[in-house]
């Protein structure tokens, strides 16, 4: 696969506003998971999540347009502004040669919630006339296109936890196909509101204690929220404007289990990881770090480990694998972008962030996922995985510039 340049990164997470806050928290193992209260849930069973800080949300809302934009959009715009500033893009770099591929699993959750509550309390009252354009999952993508006058293909990929990873992969495909020179790509998800959290509780996959990916005695995942946006460009376009290339996207794989709605299938995950590495055309042994999907559920972590072992073979022992979800939470439709950003920064820093909360090896998994403390590594390639409910898998492989 022809490499695609990564020139800008932007993130808003429960760790704070900006990639630096996300990376510092990930590297140092500082969790943004806090006690959360949802007053409308009568019997709240799960009490922990990585929610955006109130001050951060207030600052983002003040800089946004809340009458026309849900939080999901405002947070996506904040991340996009950071990514574009980092990339050094100017007004002349957008237009029809710039696409937008920004996913979301849920869309405008807070707007949905507020409108339903208002409707139930007062069915004769007036709904928010902007509710529909605020709620639609493509709203963030459209607002990004509007703010920067990016008039190329604009898409919203909504595939649950794989939304952002597929968005980045498809954006790279658009660039490689020559349809655009650059793309703003990633995902946004801000859904920690009463009704949605209650529905997540009903799935019984969240832990009531602590998220411990790959660990013995793990009991489930922890939710997060935020947005991650990256600037992708053809290497030629990046060079032509003298941009610093942070890393190169060299492999993208995506498969469907086509099996069970909720239970992951190792065959689907294996095929996905293999496709990404084959596409990159590199020896798996060159990949030094993998930011795993690593949700902390029993099923995902066993399945993902099986898949990695199958694809990496003997090289698995030299691969550092960690999940940063206990730090920023599982941000669903934004998760893949946040973790891709962590992967890129980790590769540049040559530091694998830790899996915090790790208690010991689960015999069914049989390895240690960079337990509790970051570890340096020496390699020029890294990867990130996302495996969604619905059996939709996506993996990305990156290298340092010029190494693809």
């Amino acid at each position: 696969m022809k490499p695609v340049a990564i020139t800008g990164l932007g993130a808003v997470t429960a760790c704070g506003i900006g990639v630096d806050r996300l990376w510092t928290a990930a590297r140092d193992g500082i969790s943004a998971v806090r006690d959360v209260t949802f007053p409308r849930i009568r019997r709240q069973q799960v009490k922990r999540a990585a929610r955006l800080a109130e001050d951060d949300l207030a600052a983002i809302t003040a800089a946004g347009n809340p009458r026309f934009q849900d939080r999901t959009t405002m947070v996506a715009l904040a991340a996009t502004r950071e990514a574009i500033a980092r990339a050094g893009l100017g007004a002349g770099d957008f237009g029809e040669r710039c696409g937008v591929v920004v996913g979301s699993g849920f869309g405008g959750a807070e707007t949905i919630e507020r409108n339903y509550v208002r409707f139930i309390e007062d069915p004769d009252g007036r709904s928010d006339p902007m509710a529909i354009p605020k709620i639609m999952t493509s709203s963030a993508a459209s607002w990004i296109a509007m703010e920067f006058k990016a008039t190329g293909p604009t898409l919203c990929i909504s595939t649950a936890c794989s939304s952002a990873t597929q968005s980045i992969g498809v954006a790279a495909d658009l660039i490689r196909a020559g349809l655009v020179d650059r793309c703003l790509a990633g995902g946004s998800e801000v859904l920690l509101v009463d009704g949605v959290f209650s529905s997540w509780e009903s799935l019984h996959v969240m832990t009531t204690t602590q998220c411990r990916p790959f660990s013995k005695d793990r009991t489930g995942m922890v939710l997060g929220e935020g947005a991650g946006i990256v600037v992708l460009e053809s290497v030629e376009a990046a060079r032509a404007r003298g941009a610093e290339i942070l890393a190169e996207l060299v492999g993208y794989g995506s498969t469907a289990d086509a099996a069970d709605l909720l239970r992951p299938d190792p065959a689907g995950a294996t095929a996905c990881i293999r496709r990404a590495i084959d596409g990159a055309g590199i020896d798996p042994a060159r990949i030094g770090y993998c930011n795993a999907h690593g949700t902390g559920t029993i099923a995902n972590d066993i399945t993902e480990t099986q898949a990695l072992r199958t694809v990496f073979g003997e090289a698995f022992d030299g691969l550092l694998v960690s999940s940063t979800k206990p730090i920023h939470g599982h941000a669903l439709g934004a998760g893949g972008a946040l973790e891709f950003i962590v992967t890129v920064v980790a590769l540049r820093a040559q530091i694998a962030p830790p899996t915090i909360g790790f208690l010991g090896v689960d015999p069914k998994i049989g390895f240690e996922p960079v337990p509790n403390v970051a570890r340096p590594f020496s390699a020029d390639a890294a990867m990130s995985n996302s495996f969604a409910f619905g059996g939709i898998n996506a993996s990305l492989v990156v290298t340092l510039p010029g190494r693809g």
Partner: protein
Amino acid sequence: MAGGDEELRRELLKIVAEEGMVENRDITADQRLDEIGIQSADFVMILMAIEERFGVYVPVDERLTEAKTVADLLDVVCSHIDNHRRQEAS
């Protein structure tokens, strides 16, 4: 058998049958869950019904994932309910 009186286990069996959409008279404790067609989505429905009835949150943890038979499932759920009741009592 990990806790749970007969009445509780009968009630749970009924929930498993209802939520798993299996005929109650056809379900017995020694049957394998996959044989009677209980899949991942049915598990979630069963756990929600149990939470509604008994007020106990049963996460999909290792023991639950390992459950192969109806009896295994009932054992896990009964131990959560027993724990919950002990906590409520204390």
